[in-house]
């Protein structure tokens, strides 16, 4: 069974500014884990430590029980990784770049043509004989993702895998990852909350090198959804009238001519009172928890206004992802 574990993992580039401090988590089985945090939070550092690109100052990163720093060859045997902006040798063709990875993983190219052809179709890769040095950023990224997937490694470590892709390409990768997570273990960092919401089952929030929250998307949704509702009126409604409902309404954001996001303290009584107030203002078509729960959680945690640390270890140290 595939397993990723980091144990009290720390990385200091300078003594005064740690990039990662005592990070611990473990996942096994299958599923997708989103790794979220602002720039410089330590996401890429963690992924680099998990792939042997960096050496830990202390602690350990193991894949399938093998310490990455001690035996990277065997630790990475079942891992496909896309970290930062990988570039194949520019003179390699698309098929050569992917074949090379296949050859390093299994020592031969048996069946690789069929496999690469399948990846080619699935990821809409550029022509086989095109040099990778002449590809656009998006094309190169898809080739790199294909190389990470060749020979079907069961663990995928992806650092903002849709970075630099256009919307069509993002959908392509998103659909691919949603398929793969059924029988692969995926750890992916991202800035895109919507993307993480659509792909991941579990989420790790990291800020200033420290993991501040780790839980299932479902649990986070439950916690943070409770603090915002989206309301839609049948007719246009001035925002001031909603603000005028009283102290229960902490903030109101316009998300459409007739749609508003209303922030409140999260209690059921306040939620009911606000609904009653809205109905008095005009006909309400819908009233539901806000959908961008991860964004809400992210902003709350990063601004230090949320339940940081409350749920830092909400489950056992080893979570079955799938």
């Amino acid at each position: 069974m595939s397993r990723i574990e980091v144990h009290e993992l720390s990385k200091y580039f300078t003594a005064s500014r740690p990039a990662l401090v005592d990070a611990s988590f473990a996942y096994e089985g299958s599923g997708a884990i989103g790794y979220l945090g602002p720039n410089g939070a330590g996401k890429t550092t963690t992924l680099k430590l998990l792939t042997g690109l960096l050496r830990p100052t202390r602690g350990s990163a193991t894949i399938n029980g093998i310490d990455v720093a001690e035996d990277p060859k065997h630790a990475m045997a079942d891992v496909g990784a896309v970290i930062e902006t990988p570039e194949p040798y520019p003179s390699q063709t698309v098929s050569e770049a992917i074949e090379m990875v296949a050859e390093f993983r299994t020592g031969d190219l048996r069946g690789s043509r069929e496999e690469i052809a399948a990846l080619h179709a699935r990821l809409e890769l550029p022509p086989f004989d095109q040099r990778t040095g002449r590809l656009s950023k998006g094309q190169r990224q898809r080739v790199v993702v294909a190389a990470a997937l060749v020979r079907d490694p069961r663990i995928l470590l992806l650092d903002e895998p849709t970075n630099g892709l256009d919307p069509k390409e993002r959908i392509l990768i998103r659909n691919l990852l949603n398929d793969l997570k059924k029988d692969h273990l995926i750890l992916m960092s991202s800035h895109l909350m919507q993307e993480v919401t659509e792909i991941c089952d579990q989420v790790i929030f990291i800020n200033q090198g420290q993991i501040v929250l780790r839980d299932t998307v479902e649990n986070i949704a439950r916690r943070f959804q409770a603090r915002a509702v989206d309301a839609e009126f049948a007719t246009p409604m001035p925002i001031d009238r909603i603000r005028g409902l009283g102290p229960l309404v902490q903030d109101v954001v316009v998300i459409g001519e007739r749609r508003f996001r209303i922030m409140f303290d999260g209690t059921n009584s306040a939620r009911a009172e606000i609904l009653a107030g809205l109905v008095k203002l005009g006909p309400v078509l819908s009233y539901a928890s806000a959908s961008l729960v991860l964004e809400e959680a992210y902003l709350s945690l990063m601004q230090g206004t949320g339940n940081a640390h409350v749920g830092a270890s909400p489950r056992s140290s080893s979570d079955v992802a799938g």
Partner: protein
Amino acid sequence: MDLSRLPSDYLQLISAFRRQLRFYLRTLRYVGCLGFVLVVGGAVTGVTIAEGSSMGTAAASLASGLGSIATFGIIFCALIGGDAIAMDFGSGTGYFMLVLPVRRAILLLGRYLGAFVVTVSLVLVIYAFAIFATAWFYGLGGIPWADVGASFLLALLFVASVLATAFFFSSFFRSPAMSIVTTILVLFLGLDIADGILVVTGIEPWFSILYAGEVISNAIVPVAHKTVTQVAGLTITTYSPYQWEGAVIMVAYLVVFLFLSIVIYQRKESKG
């Protein structure tokens, strides 16, 4: 994935070597060096034949043709291997290669072997022109093949040692261009200047790979180990390495710098 499917280090070395060889053969650097050596070698050989300047003996003719091989060897090695490690840390290549299930030492040795083969192919062109010009005047039978063989083996060792040195320098830089330029400056100009200073002090430059490279042509026309001359009241002491001495210096460069390159490459981090 079943770990038993993972290829052995040996198989991965073969893969790394083949892939790297293909990469080098396609680079502009290699094509440029090949074009340069073909044009310059062809021109010099053409002029030599046209002027009928046979150098007196077949050995002298060969030694003349191979006289610049150490200089060219250093330039070729620096151009081909000068960015071997830097390329992984100054561009995205490292993020593609270093996350694969391959030991870094194997990747580096594959690159090294690839660089060695393409550099030797350039050296072979120089030998081919020297042999052709000599055969033109003295016939194939007049060529001292045993000496040519010894010279070529020493040239292979020279290329191997200079490449190891170039790999070592490349481990200190993130920019491939800076790495190549520094390798050329240190190996070519730096050691040449040091040799020039030592001529006056009378110290044998036993530490210099450039000095050791002199054995490539000395294998065909032996030169006295030590020559002392007086120029304008100044005592000039020039040394020429014994064959064994040159070989030992080159082996030392090869072993030390290749070992250091592997150690540094294995420990180097992708911090960018």
